């Protein structure tokens, strides 16, 4: 397949991403508010949002934020949440394999769930312009910075006491994502129940963050992977 990388393709990606703005806004606003509440300045918040550019990872890392910053906890949180992006590049190989230098490694900087999903659809529809992926990513990156800055500004105006119901927005965001991730009880019920149960147990035992999250998540995911492997093996 001949792969292009044109300005036109990037512009088409930006246009394709426009309908996503409304859905992204609340997420950016929440992230901005919560970053402010954890004491991050606007400059620090924008630095994080610009360089990390991954909403769920930022939100989760912020849950562990303290002064001084627990480096290992927040970096581990970002790494574990973003591991899901590792298989995205290989899935886009028909495009990425033909790119070199900044076009390849720069485009990968902007890779997020939405740009991946739109680009896979574009690729399957016969699209050959890899700049589409970059266009979606850059557009969403700009929207992300603007909405996070707005959220931070809002949080500056309204100082919230710890434990305020608005902080539940982070948990609500993750619960909403779980609804989209749910693939049916047969697949997800037991791994998720195990993940939640183990996390709760580790938390009650008094292990510090992010140990409950890590141990719970890997317990559930390992169980699911082992179970599916056994089922595949026995059906052969």
């Amino acid at each position, binding site marked *: 397949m001949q792969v292009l990388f044109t300005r036109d393709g990037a512009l088409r990606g930006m246009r394709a991403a426009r309908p996503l703005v409304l859905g992204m806004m609340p997420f950016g606003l929440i992230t901005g508010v919560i970053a402010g509440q954890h004491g991050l300045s606007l400059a620090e918040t924008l*630095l994080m949002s610009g*360089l990390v550019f991954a909403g769920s*990872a930022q939100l989760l890392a912020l849950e562990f934020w303290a002064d001084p910053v627990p480096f290992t906890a927040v970096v581990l949180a970002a790494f574990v949440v973003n591991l899901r992006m590792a298989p995205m590049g290989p899935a886009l190989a028909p495009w990425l*394999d033909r790119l070199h230098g900044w076009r390849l490694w720069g485009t990968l*900087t902007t890779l997020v769930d939405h740009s991946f999903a739109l680009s896979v659809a574009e690729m399957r529809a016969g699209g050959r312009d890899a700049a589409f992926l970059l266009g979606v990513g850059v557009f969403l990156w700009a929207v992300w910075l603007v909405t996070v800055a707005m959220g931070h500004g809002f949080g500056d105006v309204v100082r919230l006491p710890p434990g305020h*119901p608005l902080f539940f927005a982070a948990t609500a965001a993750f619960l*909403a994502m779980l609804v989209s991730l749910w693939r049916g009880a047969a697949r997800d019920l037991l*791994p998720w129940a195990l993940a939640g149960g183990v996390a*709760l147990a580790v938390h009650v035992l008094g292990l510090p963050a992010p140990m409950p999250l890590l141990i719970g998540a890997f317990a559930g995911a390992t169980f699911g992977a082992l179970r599916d492997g056994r089922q595949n093996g026995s059906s052969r």
Partner: protein
Amino acid sequence: MEMRADVVIAILGMAAVTYLCRAGGYAILRAIRPPPFLERLLHYLPGCIFVAYAAPGLALGGPAAWAAGAACIAVQAKTRNFAASTVAGVGVLWLMRLAGA
């Protein structure tokens, strides 16, 4: 425009591991096919992470948190609207707290 050293270092660390996932995933997984077990683990990980994050706070949060969580999940399942479900969760928690729960 305050920038503290420990904050900037943590952000750079987060950015580095995130780029490792984005670009390293492509560089490594294109060269070697991951073992099937690892592939399956990666499929389960996102859901399990968010469950493991939310579970302790929800379980220990009492009836107000349970009602708020249920409202958020119900609205998201019904509308698939992220803003609506977040507002529903926060709103129910707020009302329950005002009601003294």
